[in-house]
């Protein structure tokens, strides 16, 4: 098995659990969504012939979405976009929310920014926050964008070979 195939397969396996989390704390949904998108992006950004695993960076989703604009028309149409300009506009509109999802990885967020996995300290108040009890308002404030991104990722996952 190649590294590319392994990352794409694990993204689909993570997504099986992610889809079961709709009734759970939003932090659980975000935790798995971030992991699914990272692995999916790494899979697509890794050549089929690569003998090396992708780098350990967590910053891959936005780059993946920018590059996805170059998808062949047949794949774009399978994803539900007969028109290329609409596909590009859709992807561009989701880059801000994708940037926020990318930043949820604990290694990116650090000890002072929200992440869905580990408690962190709010710098302005000094309060220590439990992810499972946090609102993630920066994500929920853009719920439509979040839902559009979820829809896109589900569609891409459905067409991973």
């Amino acid at each position: 098995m190649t590294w590319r195939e392994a990352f794409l397969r694990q993204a689909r396996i993570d997504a099986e659990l992610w889809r079961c989390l709709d009734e759970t704390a939003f932090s659980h949904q975000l935790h798995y969504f971030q992991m699914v998108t990272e692995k999916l992006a790494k899979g697509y950004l890794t050549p089929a012939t690569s003998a090396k695993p992708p780098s350990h960076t967590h910053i891959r989703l936005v780059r993946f979405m920018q590059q996805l604009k170059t998808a062949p028309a047949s794949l774009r149409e399978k994803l539900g976009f007969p028109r290329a300009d609409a596909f590009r506009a859709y992807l561009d509109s989701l880059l801000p929310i994708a940037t926020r999802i990318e930043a949820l990885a604990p290694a990116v967020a650090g000890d002072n920014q929200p992440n869905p996995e580990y408690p962190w300290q709010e710098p302005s108040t000094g309060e220590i926050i439990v992810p499972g009890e946090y609102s993630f308002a920066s994500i929920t404030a853009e719920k439509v964008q979040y839902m559009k991104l979820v829809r896109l990722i589900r569609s891409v996952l459905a067409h991973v070979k």
Partner: protein
Amino acid sequence: MTVEEQAKKLAAQNKATESKISEIYWFPDEKEVRLVEVLDELPLQDSDELEVIYFNPEPDMPHQMAIGLVHPRQFKRLTLPHAWGTWETGRKLEIAG
């Protein structure tokens, strides 16, 4: 369909759908379509190697595809992926826009 034919078809598709692509280069390979598309409405890369997305074959595109987007300021300044050769091996495709 040969790799070159598919490269030109994919380049034409992308140019037709993104008018801001200024140039497209094809890096010949026997099995894989390898394109670099120059686009100025693109954030600069913060890594040294050109980042590429890989698409599996489609029914009308039988060869594996690899496409990199590059900002004009980073054109020929980034390292190409392993086995792509040098920037000089890239052939500019004349695509009607």
